[in-house]
């Protein structure tokens, strides 16, 4: 497995082959037709990713051990989507899904004793889409992070001991108009 580890002075990260990892997982997905136009989609996944052997890189300031969880891999993730889809006029249809996406907390290092260890908390995101399709054109409006959540995507620790959060993009609205020739 390739993983990013910190340099001796914790100032830089670099990639290395750190040893074998075992990843077990399961995913369940369901689509339920609530009405001819309304469908509920549910997806949930469980991932158990861990080192299968002690970390091989001797230069790392800390060592992962067999059984440690692989960094930045949430154990649980899932999303739910409620989608309306139907014809609104002659040769024109409308799709309008509303998505809730979530993922569990995850750590930045194999073990709390390793320099630069930090945990990123679980987060939930709400997205909305509206797509109007004509035989000759389509118009779509995508709204990401409708609630304008400000939780960090990832938290790391620098060599100065300060926490840095690589923040998510803010609430975003994307308007797309496409034509067929």
């Amino acid at each position: 497995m390739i993983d990013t580890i910190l340099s001796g002075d914790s100032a830089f990260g670099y990639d290395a082959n750190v040893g074998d990892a075992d990843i077990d997982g399961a995913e369940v997905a369901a689509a339920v037709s609530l009405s001819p136009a309304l469908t509920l989609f549910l997806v949930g996944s469980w991932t158990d990713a861990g080192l299968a052997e002690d970390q091989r890189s001797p230069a790392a300031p800390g060592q992962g051990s067999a059984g440690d969880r692989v960094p930045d891999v949430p154990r649980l993730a899932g999303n739910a989507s409620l989608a309306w889809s139907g014809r609104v006029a002659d040769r024109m249809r409308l799709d309008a899904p509303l998505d809730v996406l979530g993922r569990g907390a995850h750590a930045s290092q194999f073990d709390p004793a390793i320099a630069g260890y930090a945990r990123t908390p679980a987060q939930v995101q709400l997205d909305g889409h509206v797509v109007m399709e004509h035989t000759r054109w389509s118009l779509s409006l995508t709204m990401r992070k409708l609630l304008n959540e400000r939780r960090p995507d990832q938290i790391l620790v620098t060599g100065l001991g300060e926490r840095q959060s690589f923040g998510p993009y803010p609430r975003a609205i994307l308007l797309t108009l496409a034509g067929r020739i």
Partner: protein
Amino acid sequence: MLAADAVCTVPQQDRYRAYVTSRLPAILHQPMHVASASREVRPRSEPLAGLIVTTGLFAEHRRDRVSSYIALADSATDLLLRPVSVTGLRTIETGLDQTALYGEVTGALGPHVTATAGLRAFRYVREASGTVEQPNLITGTASIAPGRFTTSENGVTWKARLLWKSGSCLLAYLWFADGFRPGRVNITFAPTGAERSYHSDALASYKAGLQARRRGVQL
């Protein structure tokens, strides 16, 4: 410059502390230029004696260049302060050339079972180089070794799939495959020879799945 075992005097420490404080808050600003071209030819046969054959040739040529600035940030907004006040600047150039030849065969093993088997032979070459335009005295980027470094690898990956379908309501599959992520070169600090580059990692995956559909519910 101090010798390795030398200790700064108190006035030197005070001057260094004042310098670090004057460079905060800091932000990492990395404008990037990427040029990438991919080409793929993938002929697929019509069913012949119950078999469908797909072959392909893939080639990618990618070059990118990053200017990595550590610069002062606006203390009110945490955004990059303009005009840019540079604490340290490195430029990093990397490249990837990879080619692959692949093929797969799909055939029926019975009225409900379909099997697929495939092979993919690959070769890649990674290259990277870095230049310190302005050393960052706080993080020590002056110690980054200049020069161009490469790593390359050849290999073969495979996959196999069994698909069982009963009517339009039930589908089960078994999937075995191995793959890889290309290795590359570390140029972000002064590594030892062993840390300079790393090879690809191998992924062996086994997947079993079941899909069912009944009265408006699909699982």
